[in-house]
């Protein structure tokens, strides 16, 4: 737990540094840097909320991720085109969220891992049949289930990770902090390397801002950070290297996947919930990929 507080302190120190740099930039250039200012302020709020809730105990942490899932999937359902009858299917999908997080809270892995992929997956088409609307059945069920998988099932792995028992003195909360900090830092690294060195776009049709230089720079830096933060984990150095590589790559792909959804439906930002960041989807996009992959790696090796 001391390690968590220490890391929390590091994060807040980093944010203080960022705020100071912003202030210096403002004084020197005389420009307001409004976007960047809003972004850093949002980081303060998010980091503060996150740290407070994971320190407050299991209910707080699980509740936080349940809320995040709910807000994210709400943005998703608002974004995609739906038929009128889909409202009723989506209603049942929402009801599955508290249960999914209840299993995470209880630490009931067997149920947690099949609740959405098996039970909800089988329930939603049944609810569809009751509507009697055959046209668009497949597309609609597919989209709803897909959103539930990405923004509820995937994200809920964070909550389950939190509740994992200690391994070699490292509790789930430390692993969770490790994962979230690395994922978010990787996003920031990608942005910084992309802005400064980025030339070759990787997927120009999907996200022109994603460059090979940004990805590789972030990959290297994230791996180094993963080793540096190893004190939070029971990982050996090779394991930390692998964790860093997985988080950097998965985070990159998760970001692209959410961009792809937005491209497909033809919008730029999914929301304005977080000033300077866009919607909540834009903030958790990387986590939808890093959370399940990191979790299952850890779960396989240590549990």
């Amino acid at each position: 737990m001391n390690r968590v507080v220490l890391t929390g302190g590091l994060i807040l120190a980093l944010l203080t540094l960022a705020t100071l740099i912003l202030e210096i930039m403002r004084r020197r250039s005389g420009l307001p840097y409004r976007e960047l200012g809003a972004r850093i302020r949002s980081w303060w709020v998010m980091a503060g909320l996150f740290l407070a809730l994971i320190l407050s105990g299991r209910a707080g942490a699980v509740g936080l991720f349940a809320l995040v899932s709910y807000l994210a999937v709400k943005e998703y359902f608002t974004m995609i085109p739906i038929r009128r009858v889909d409202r009723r299917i989506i209603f049942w999908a929402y009801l599955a969220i508290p249960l999914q997080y209840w299993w995470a809270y209880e630490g009931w892995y067997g149920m947690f891992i099949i609740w959405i992929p098996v039970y909800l997956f089988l329930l939603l088409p049944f609810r569809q049949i009751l509507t009697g609307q055959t046209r668009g059945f497949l597309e609609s069920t597919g989209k709803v289930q897909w959103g539930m998988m990405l923004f509820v099932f995937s994200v809920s792995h964070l909550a389950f990770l939190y509740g994992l028992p200690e391994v070699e003195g490292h509790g789930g909360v430390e692993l969770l902090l490790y994962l979230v900090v690395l994922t978010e830092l990787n996003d920031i690294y990608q942005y910084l390397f992309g802005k400064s060195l980025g030339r070759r776009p990787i997927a120009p049709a999907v996200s022109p801002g994603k460059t090979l230089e940004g990805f590789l720079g972030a990959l290297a830096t994230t791996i180094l950070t993963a080793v540096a933060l190893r004190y939070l984990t029971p990982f050996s150095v090779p394991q930390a290297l692998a964790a860093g590589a997985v988080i950097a790559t998965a985070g990159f792909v998760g970001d692209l996947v959410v961009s792809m959804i937005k491209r497909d439906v033809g919008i730029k930002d999914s929301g304005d919930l977080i000033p300077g960041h866009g919607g909540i989807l834009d903030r958790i996009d990387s986590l939808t990929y890093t959370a399940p992959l990191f979790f299952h790696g850890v779960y396989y090796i240590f549990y």
Partner: protein
Amino acid sequence: MRLKTLFFLLIVRPLLLLLSGIRAEGTERLPRQGPAILVANHNSHLDTLALMSLFPAATLPRVRPVAARDYFYATVLRRFVSERLVGILPLERRGVKKREEHHPLEPLAEALDRGEILIIYPEGSRGEPGELRPFKSGFAHLAKMRPHVPVIPVEIKGTDRALPKDEALWVPFIIDIHIGEACYYNNTVREFTRRIERFFENGDPHADR
């Protein structure tokens, strides 16, 4: 009017925030002071609640949605909600033309003179989800009677998914509210109606340029 403010602060706002969430664009164009006419599209009972919830508590008592007396005062409960909690400005629909004791829009003009902010749905009653019905020109007549009062178009999206007409199940979807720039009556009733209507057709924020 204290009850209305409490209703919005303690019930409407938290419920809307949790169950739907509102993304508002152009809230700085919402009037702090009356008189003003807000013209909005109408698909759901949520329209009124969502739009009113954007106003600060101090302004809220002055915001009054114009609605049909015969429907909203029909039962005791509905009347209580309409009159005390939402504070509608009841409009006589039937028999007005026959009596012609005074101009049917006179109560609305008087409300504007008292400095109130009126919400008018020129589509008449709630339309089918996602569909925009032709505008009635009532609001333009009113604007003609009080040409110094700003007319602000407000586009509301998402309420038709969250709580459509004839449905009782509120499903969480984000509500988008887009507040346009104020327009002033300056031409004919017909052209003014069209000008406002175009805002909703194009989503054009500069309907008055």
